[in-house]
C-alpha cells in the first residue's frame, strides 16, 4: 500500500493505492470520485480518458498515478466552474454531444491544444479522440470558433 498526494483541479487529495502504478484514471474515478473522466479502451487508443497534466493532454488509462505526484491534474470537472470554458460553450452552441460519453476526453484534448496556443484547424489536426456516435462534423464546426 502506498500513499500518494495528488493535486486535482486545484484541490489536494491523499489516496492510498495498493500499487503506485495504478493508472490515474481509476484513482480519479474510484478513489477520488471524479467520474467525468471515462474508461473506453484501457490501451491508449480511444482517448476517452484524456486529462491535462501540467497543461498537457495525457491518457489517464495508462498514466501511473505516482507519476502525477507533484503535478497539476485537471479533469473535465475542473475545466471551468460553470461550463464557461470556450470549448464547452462551443460544444453547447453547436449541440455536439450525442451519447456524450467520449466528450469529456474530447473537450480535454481540445482544451490542451488551446493551452498550447493552437486554434481552429490546428486543433482539428491534433484531436484524435474516438467518437463512436460520429459527432465529428459538429466538432469541426465548434472548433472553428476556438
Amino acid at each position, binding site marked *: 500500500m502506498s500513499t500518494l498526494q495528488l493535486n486535482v483541479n486545484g484541490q489536494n487529495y491523499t489516496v492510498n493505492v495498493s500499487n503506485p502504478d495504478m493508472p490515474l484514471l481509476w484513482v480519479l474515478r474510484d478513489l477520488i470520485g471524479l467520474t467525468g473522466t471515462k474508461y473506453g*479502451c484501457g490501451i491508449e*487508443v480511444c482517448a476517452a480518458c484524456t486529462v491535462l497534466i501540467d497543461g498537457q493532454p495525457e491518457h489517464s488509462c495508462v498514466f501511473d498515478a505516482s507519476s502525477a505526484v507533484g503535478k497539476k491534474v485537471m479533469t473535465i470537472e475542473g475545466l471551468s466552474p460553470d461550463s464557461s470554458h470556450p470549448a464547452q460553450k462551443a460544444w453547447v452552441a453547436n449541440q455536439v454531444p*450525442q*451519447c*456524450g460519453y467520449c466528450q469529456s476526453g474530447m473537450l480535454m484534448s481540445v482544451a490542451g491544444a488551446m493551452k498550447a496556443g493552437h486554434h481552429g484547424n490546428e486543433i482539428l489536426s491534433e*484531436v484524435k479522440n474516438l467518437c*463512436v456516435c*460520429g459527432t465529428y*462534423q459538429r466538432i*469541426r464546426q465548434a472548433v472553428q470558433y476556438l
Partner: protein
Amino acid sequence: MSTTTLESRSSRKNEHKIGRRGFLATAGGFTLTFLMPEVTRLSEAEGATPGQVNAWLTIGADESITLTVGSSEMGQGSFSGLAQILAEDLMVDYARIRGVQGGPTMSNPAPVGTAINTVGSSVTRTNFWKMRDAGAIARETLVQAAMNQIGDPVRGNYTVNNGVITHTPDGVTRTYGQVAPDAAALTPPSTASLVPDDQFKLIGKTVPRLDIPSKVNGGAKYGLDVRMDGMYYAVIKHSPSFGGTLAFTPAKPSGMLAVVPTRVIAGTNRGSEATGNVNAVAVVGSNTWDTWQAAKSLRVTWNLPASASSLNNAQFQADAQALLTSAAPYVAGGANPAGTLYTVESIGSVNDAIAGSAKSIDVTYSLPYVAHACMEVLNCTVNYVAGVSCEIWAPTQSSKAVLQLAMTLTGLPSTAINVHTMYLGGGLGRKAEVDFVSEAIQVAMAVNKPVKLMWPREEDFTRDQYRPMALIHARAGLDNSGNVTGWSYRNVSPSILGQRGAPLGAKGDSQGIEGAQSLPYNFGTRLTEWVSHPSPIPVGFWRSVGASVNTFGVESMMDELAAAAGADPYTFRRALLTDPRWIAVLDAAATLGNWNTPPPSGRARGIAIGTAFNSIVAEVVEISQVTTTSLKVNRVSCAIDCYVSVNPGSIQAQLQGGIVHGMNAALYGKQNFVNGAAQAKNFNQSRMIRLQEMPQIDISIIPNPAAASRTTNIGGVGELGVPTFAPALANAYFKLTGTRVRTLPFFPAATMGGL
C-alpha cells in the same frame, strides 16, 4: 439555452394511485398519467392492459412542468423530442419542461408494468400523437379550471400563451400553476383539439437538447459512473470461447472479496450460451483496477464443447455456401431446424424470366459478424439486501426486462425492486440485452453487498451478441430495354429471432430479411428467400438490424444491373420506382450530391436508397484516393422522408452519426472467430474513423406534410443513416475503380494505432 435537466427517477417513486380517467391529485398540482405504447423488436406494439400507465405529466402549483417517461437516452435526443412535442400542444415554452427519467412501474393492474423499450428508432415516431394528445388534454383541463374560477364558461373567450390563460373580455389571467390544484379535481376530456399544423411554434423547429449541458462538464451520470457507500467492484471474465463452461471455481485471489461464478439466465443469452451454462466468473474487490488485475491473472479452467473447433469463419462460410443451394424448404407444422429455407415473397416465375432474359447477373455478397462496441462498456450496479430489496442502476435500453429479470432472480415482488435507467454511453442495440445485468444481480446476491460489475473492453468486444453474418445470393435478368424481368434474392444468416425462441412462421425471420422485402422497384417477377444459418454465435440487434445487411445486397445488385443495362445508376433506379415518396427522396439525394454534375477529378460517386422503420433514406457517397488499404470518403449527401420532422437539428445529428456508424462497419467492421474465440478484442483491432477522416455530410429532410395524418406511419431516424451507406460506398468504388466490392468490410486487416 435550455436550463432544464434530465434527472434520474426510480421506479418506486413513480407509484402513484391512479385516479379516474388517468388523472390523479398530487400535493399542490395535478398529474396526467397515460400509456405510451411499447415497441419491442419481437412485436411491433405490445398490447396494453386498461389502466396501465408509464408516463406522467405533472403541473405544479409552483408552475413547474415535469414529464416523466421511461425511454432511455443514449444520444439520440428522443427525450427532448418528446418534451418538444408535448410543449407544442400544452402551449408552453419548451425550456420550461423538466425531464425526469422514469423507471419501469409496478403500479399497474398488470403483473408487470410497462416501460419504454428504446429500440427500433421508435420513441418519437410511436409517441408523437400520444404526446400531442397529452399536452392538449392537460391544457384543456387547466383551461376548464380557469373558466370555473373566472365564471365564464365560454371557451372562445380564453386564450393560452406559455402557460398563461387569459380571459380576453377583461384581461383577467390565470397561470397553469394557479389553476393546477383545481384542475386535479376535474374529469379531463377524453380528447382535445390540437394546435393546427400551420401554427406550430415548436414541431419542425430545431431546439437545443435537454441533456447536452450536462454532457460538457462531466456531470452526466452514465451507468459506469454509479457510486455508493460500501460499494464493491466486480470485473467479469468469460470463457474465451463461446460454448465454454467453468470446470471449477478458482480460489479467491489475495486481497479480493470473492470469485463468483455466473450462469446464463433464460432469455439473456443465445446460441452457444445455453441457459444454465456457467460461462463466466466475476472477481470482486475494492476498486476497478486491482480487481481487473486480479481477474486478468486468475487462472480459470474452461470445459469446451466438442463443437468449439467448428466455430470458425471457414466453417460458417462453408455452411452458408451449402445452404445457398441445398436448404430444405419450410414445412408447415414441421420442426424447421436451422438450415430451413423460407419463402418470403414469390411473384411469378423468376427462374423462367431470368432464363429468358437478354442479360442476367448471378452474384453473391458476404457480410461478417460485427460487434456493437459502444463507447461505454457494459456495466451494471446492484444493491441487494437479501430477502428485502434490490436496487439496480443500469445503462439499459430495456428497463422493463431488467425489472422482470430481477424479479426472477431474487424472487422479490416488483414493489421491492427499483430500476434506475442511467444515461447510456451508446446503446446501438447491445444494451437492449440484459446478460450483463443478470451477471451483476448474481454477483450482488452472492456477496450480499452493493456491487458495480464492469466488462473490460476486451470482454465487451469478444462476448457480444453480434450483428449476424450473411451470405446473399442475388440473381436478376434484364431485357434489351433495361427492364428487370426477374429478381431473386436469398439471404442465409443466423436468426436473431430464432435465437430468442420466437417461433418463425412460413416467412422466417422478419428481422433477417427486412430491407429486402416489399422492395418498391417494378420487377417483372420476384423471389425473396431467407435461410436460417445454424451458427450458434450469439447474434442480436445492431443499429438498423436487417436493413444494414440487406440494403447492401439489394442496392449493390441494383447498381450491377444498372451497369449491365448501360444505364446511369440514379436514372435506372428512378425508372423502376413508382412511389412518389421514394422518387422524391432519390431525387433529393441526387440533387444534394450534385449527381448530374461530374465530380472533381479523381473522385466518383455512388448512390443507394432504402427503408427502415417507416422512413425512406437515400445517400450519395463521393470518394477518392483508393489504395489497397484505404480510401477517402469526401462527401455524403443524405435525404430522408420520415413523414414528420420534429427537431431537424436532431435528425441531422442522428443521420450524421448513423452514416459514421455505417462507414466504420463498411470499411473496417468485422469479428472473426477461431475455435469459438472472437479475435478482435479492442479498438486497435477494430478500426473506426477519427475526426480527420470525417467526410462532409449534408442532409436534406423532405418537408413535413401540410397537415399530418394519424393514419400515416411516422418514420424513425436514429438508425436510418446506416443502411444505405455501405452500398453507396461500394457503388462509388466500382465507378472509380471498375472493381465491385461484394464482401464487407473493405479493409478487413485495418488496425487503429495508439495515440
